[in-house]
């Protein structure tokens, strides 16, 4: 039944009793953003593990020269599906469908997402699209085998016959619509359902980043869907948009794809930056250093990311090298601001190295390495030399592993007590982190060297006399160590399910509004709300006597004397005179 959600008022709210369907019917009919977010998370983690197993098969093939572990066609299909599952079905949906769906309404103080039924629809479209793409393994000819980018003319019907490529294209179209619907929901929720006093410049950075990500999704995904429809028309309806045979332009596909594809990289990165920006202040016991700098850096990264698509196409010879090179290099500036602020937040803080904090620090190193090699690749001379080698493979794996895996699992451990009201086992989380870190660096550092030696990407076999085997073996062992590290995650979840340790509502003494709700949050989220007088309402409420920390962060975010001085009382009006919006 529909509930007219009342705005919760402090201390005088009667919890409305909610009765709804249970069991399977609840799963099918729920429009609660928490359940949908959990569905998204579970589905995308299944996709992550499937794609991880594919990666292990690929690395096994490459561990010896001229290996016959997989046939060439199987190898091509596996790297295509590895990339597609990781990028389209794990990294994006885990962030904007899973974590954001669950956390964003809580962080802004809303009872649910703005359009709950649209939210449910986007999950079912995502599930349908995932199944459609995976069905490719079951049809004759095997799964799509043209790489996750599906460049024309390789993806046209004469080079990729069979129905699996069609399933791949249709799966992308379905998940694309699901992403667009979720983005509409996230923007509307952020604009219209904030709690009183939660101005835009008091939103947690995770919410800010999700807002910017949602705008990026609205810019990028329609173009991907259009490119896929045109590709489908070329395959089946006799058009020649991407094939030179009928006067079409194959490079048009690359333009369309990368106009989606590069913003997609930031759709996969910005939410995870948001997680890191929320976690680091909590475990440093300090407010975020440079709040507004973070917000504007996020916007700058997003804006620039949409103007750099053709840096993936330098070697086609038909793009404007200086334009795309300049904009690509410029992205390093706002990203550098973010790094500066993260380090500034940790500087002289009281650090506690819990599992989420360790994963965030792991993210800083991984993303720094990936980002710096990205700056190298933005320079056309270096790009011409390393294009389509393992150098590029190592670069984007370090970027995406840094964000989606390190920061993504930081978010999972950080919010796990909120999701279930119980703690994970700390020692297993730390073991997960250290094994992951060893495996991660052992996997990708050799790939940089192999790339500089000239090993091309997307090859299933290499001759023995080139001396590439030793480094490939190191890389394969690293990949297996990564695989083993995730056993600790699964065992951890299992143990915490069987033998729960109650966590309480706010085990981390965290700052943002979701930690004011019960763990797990009740139906429609909040029975009461604290007064919101800064970007750290829960901290202010719990520490009314806290001394104001004055450092660069306070000066730069304009909140001056505001932090936690009068905010503990319900009449904290006018506490922060520095706030002008």
């Amino acid at each position, binding site marked *: *039944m*529909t*509930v*007219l*959600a*009342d*705005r919760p*008022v*402090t201390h005088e709210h009667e919890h409305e009793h*909610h009765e709804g*369907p249970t069991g399977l019917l*609840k799963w*099918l*009919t*729920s*429009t*609660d953003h928490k359940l949908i977010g959990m569905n998204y998370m579970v589905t995308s983690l299944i996709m992550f593990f499937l794609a991880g197993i594919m990666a292990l098969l690929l690395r096994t093939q490459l561990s010896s020269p001229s290996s016959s572990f997989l046939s060439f066609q199987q190898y091509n299909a596996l790297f295509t599906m590895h990339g597609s599952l990781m990028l389209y079905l794990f990294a994006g949906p885990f962030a904007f469908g899973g974590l954001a769906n669950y956390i964003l309404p809580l962080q802004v103080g*809303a*009872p649910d997402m703005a359009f*709950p*039924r*649209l939210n*449910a*629809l986007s*999950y*079912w*479209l995502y*599930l*349908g*699209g995932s*199944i*459609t793409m995976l069905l490719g393994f079951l*049809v004759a000819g095997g799964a799509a085998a043209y790489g996750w980018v599906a460049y024309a003319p390789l993806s046209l019907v004469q080079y990729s016959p069979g129905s699996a490529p*069609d*399933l791949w294209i*249709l799966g992308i179209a379905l998940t694309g619509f699901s992403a667009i619907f979720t983005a509409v929901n996230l923007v509307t929720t952020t604009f219209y*359902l904030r*709690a*009183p*006093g*939660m*101005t*835009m410049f008091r939103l947690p950075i995770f919410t800010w980043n999700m807002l910017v990500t949602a*705008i990026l999704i609205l*810019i990028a995904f329609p173009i991907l869907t259009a490119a896929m429809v045109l590709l489908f028309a070329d395959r089946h309806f006799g058009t020649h948009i991407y094939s030179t045979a009928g006067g079409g332009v194959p490079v*048009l596909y690359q*333009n*369309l794809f990368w*106009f989606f594809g590069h913003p997609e990289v930031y759709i996969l990165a910005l939410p995870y930056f948001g997680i890191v920006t929320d976690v680091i202040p909590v475990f440093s016991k300090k407010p975020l250093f440079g709040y507004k700098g973070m917000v504007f850096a996020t916007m700058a990264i997003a804006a620039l990311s*949409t103007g750099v*698509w053709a840096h993936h196409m330098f070697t086609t010879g*038909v*793009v*404007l090298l200086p*334009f795309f090179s300049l904009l690509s290099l410029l992205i390093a500036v706002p990203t550098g601001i973010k790094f500066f602020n993260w380090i500034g937040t940790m500087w002289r803080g009281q650090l506690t190295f819990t599992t989420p904090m360790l994963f965030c620090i792991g993210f800083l190193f991984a993303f720094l390495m990936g980002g710096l090699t990205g700056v190298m690749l933005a320079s056309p001379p270096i790009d011409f030399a390393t294009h389509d080698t393992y150098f590029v493979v190592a670069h984007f794996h370090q970027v995406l592993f840094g964000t989606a895996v390190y920061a993504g699992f930081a978010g999972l451990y950080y919010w796990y007590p909120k999701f279930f009201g119980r703690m994970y086992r700390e020692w297993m989380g730390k073991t997960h982190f250290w094994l992951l870190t060893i495996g991660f660096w052992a996997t990708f550092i050799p790939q940089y060297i192999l790339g500089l030696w000239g090993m091309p990407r997307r090859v299933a076999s290499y001759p023995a006399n080139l001396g590439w085997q030793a480094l490939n073996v190191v890389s394969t062992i690293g990949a297996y160590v990564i695989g083993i590290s995730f056993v600790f995650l699964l065992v951890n979840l299992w143990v915490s399910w069987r033998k729960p340790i109650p966590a309480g509502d706010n085990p981390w003494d965290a700052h943002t509004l979701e930690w004011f709700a019960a763990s797990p949050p009740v139906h*429609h989220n909040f029975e009461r709300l604290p*007064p919101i007088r800064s970007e750290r309402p829960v901290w202010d409420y719990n520490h009314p006597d806290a001394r104001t920390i004055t450092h660069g962060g306070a000066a730069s975010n304009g909140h001056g004397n505001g932090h936690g001085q009068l905010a503990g009382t*319900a009449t904290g009006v006018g506490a922060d005179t520095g*706030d002008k*919006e």
Partner: protein
Amino acid sequence: MRIEALFLLGVAAFFGVVGLFYWFTAYEQGGFVMLVGTTILGFLPGSYYLWWSLRMKPRPEDRTDATLEDGAGVIGAFPSSSIWPFVLGMGLFLMVLSIVFGLWLIAPGAALVVSAVIGVTVESRRGGTI
């Protein structure tokens, strides 16, 4: 509301400038069209929000000094359970599969889609039950 409007208009302004620059420097038109489309994406809602923000009082969530009592009252209607999103999603899923596995799948797919559209409309008019 003002900040939301400026945020969206900022999207339009940035892509307008980049689009102009691209038109005069690059050798292809596809990217220019996409940049113009993105400019419109920011301009349409942004100008609407700006228009309203100049005509309305700041909402409680726009004011730094708002108390919870300022925002008391009904926020909106949130349907708490509905079967129709699932039906609509599965209908679209079947219709997509029909392209590969045979056009006969369109029949059940379209039936599900149509029933979901009717169902969700009726549900909204009744005030919503499953």
